[in-house]
């Protein structure tokens, strides 16, 4: 029920924005979906696999840079962009995942962070592609008659990718593969004793989850027509975790809700009158990151299942 309502609301954003002549909110909700997609991807390993990756922002970067770099060389074909992004992401995720899965617990968190930092500094070092300052993209990925330059078409393309990912995610967590992944989260030792080569399944999940983030990066580059190392700052990896946990890690849709909450609250603190006394209102607006931090701490201390997790029946 809640899921249908959320998706219908997202589908209704473009006509509403057109009616209210507020194109800015189209971009805002496109961002919500893109980051929600990345958080959903992360949540496959985080929520269902119990593997806390603190480096998934690097895959957003891979997807975005694939578009940026190919565009800089005059390649505008969307399928080329997509294929390059996914191939690069899969290769990186296979390598990084294999090394990281040698460790568990805190060491896993840290080593995923270390790899993300490496890729971040690599991007900073790509002086031909803007280095620290990033790189503007001259034209959006070309998909024949599908003109992503039209904001509404771009919005619905992102929406379609989101829907497909949701469906696939929902099937996956209840499939044999999902059972193994969730079982390994609960009791990895026991899974091995039952005869499952656990690491192989975890690596597969890691690669799938990375590819969803690559997809999100690909869409982000097309939305902003810009890529920069900032897309893969460690704070972004942290925010993805925040979104997943805020929305609820036990559900497929939860991270999308978390992304919406995080981005919309930040937007609301920045843009809307809150009816607070003069001075206080200014103060909150100027220091909204602190307010957000407070919210995150409260959520972590007080909430066990996330906002969406509390509304919807759990996936199990």
């Amino acid at each position, binding site marked *: 029920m809640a899921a249908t309502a959320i998706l219908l609301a997202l589908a209704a954003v473009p006509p509403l924005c057109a009616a209210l002549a507020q194109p800015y909110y189209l971009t805002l909700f496109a961002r919500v979906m893109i980051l929600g997609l990345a958080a959903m991807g992360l949540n496959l390993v985080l929520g269902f696999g119990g593997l806390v990756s603190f480096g998934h922002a690097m895959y957003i970067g891979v997807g975005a840079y694939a578009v940026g770099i190919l565009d800089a060389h005059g390649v505008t074909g969307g399928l080329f962009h997509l294929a390059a992004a996914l191939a690069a992401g899969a290769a990186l995720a296979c390598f990084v995942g294999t090394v990281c899965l040698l460790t568990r617990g805190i060491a896993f968190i840290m080593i995923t962070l270390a790899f993300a930092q490496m890729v971040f500094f690599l991007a900073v070092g790509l002086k031909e592609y803007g280095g620290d300052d990033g790189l503007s993209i001259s034209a959006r990925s070309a998909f024949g008659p599908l003109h992503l330059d039209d904001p509404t078409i771009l919005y619905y393309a992102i929406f379609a990718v989101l829907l497909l990912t949701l469906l*696939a995610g929902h*099937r*996956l967590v*209840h*499939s*044999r*593969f*999902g*059972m*193994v992944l*969730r*079982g390994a989260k*609960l*009791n990895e*030792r*026991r*899974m*091995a*004793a*039952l*005869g*499952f*080569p*656990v690491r192989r*399944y975890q690596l*597969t999940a890691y690669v799938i989850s990375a590819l969803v983030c690559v997809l999100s990066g690909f869409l982000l580059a097309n939305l902003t027509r810009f890529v920069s190392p900032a897309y893969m700052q460690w704070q972004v990896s942290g925010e993805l975790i925040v979104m997943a946990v805020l929305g609820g890690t036990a559900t497929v849709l939860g991270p999308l809700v978390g992304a919406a909450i995080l981005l919309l609250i930040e937007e609301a603190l920045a843009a809307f009158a809150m009816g607070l006394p003069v001075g206080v209102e200014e103060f909150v607006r100027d220091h909204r990151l602190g307010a957000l931090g407070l919210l995150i701490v409260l959520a972590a201390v007080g909430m066990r299942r996330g906002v969406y997790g509390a509304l919807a029946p759990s996936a*199990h």
Partner: protein
Amino acid sequence: MLRLEDLVKHYGGLAATDHLCLEIAAGELHAIIGPNGAGKSTLIGQLSGEIRPDQGRIVFDGRDITREPVHRRALAGLGRSYQISSVFTEFSALENVILAVQARSGHSFRFWRRANTETQLVQPAQAALAAVGLSDLAQRSVASLAHGERRQLEIAMTLASKPKLLLLDEPMAGMSQAESAELTQRLATLKGSLTIVLVEHDMDTVFALADRVTVLVAGRTIATGTGAEIRADPGVRQAYLGEQEESW
């Protein structure tokens, strides 16, 4: 069925397993007992593959498995239960057993179809639940099961994975007298249909069930034989009476 040849495992200067040799015949129920610190846990760990021996060989069903990882041993037919009941608490009882069946029915790189609608997984799982008398609780979340019921579920899972040899690591630990009597009975009915290695503190169970008993002290076997032989063995009496008189 299972042969340990000159197995050695050291922790620092301490020999937890000290040139251990042991032969377990197909179909027998072989109990391993010994005082605390005799190296039983280390031995179980080496059998299931979680601990790698420093030296020696483990041959299972005619195959050297000394260097095989845990999941390969499990697929080769070496099943084990844990000292601490370790079922998957977020899953239903049925899903727990489905996982056990799934492990033995091909790879699990299947991403689309719901596992709990696959007949080839559900049917054997239900049969295993019925065998331990848990059919009524199939859909219940394991978190809501009582301790004894979880242990029975554990047995159902082990059975569903159709092992050739079953490693039971203190299955009676933490059970009430009635529960452990029931489990003893169930094990008695399993006897003969598969090989069982039983590590147990509860001596009544050991002598009621075991075909043969091996006594482990300081990482070596000091005696192997039938229950009666072990009871009569002066070396065993001394090893035990010195430390654990009340057990006898």
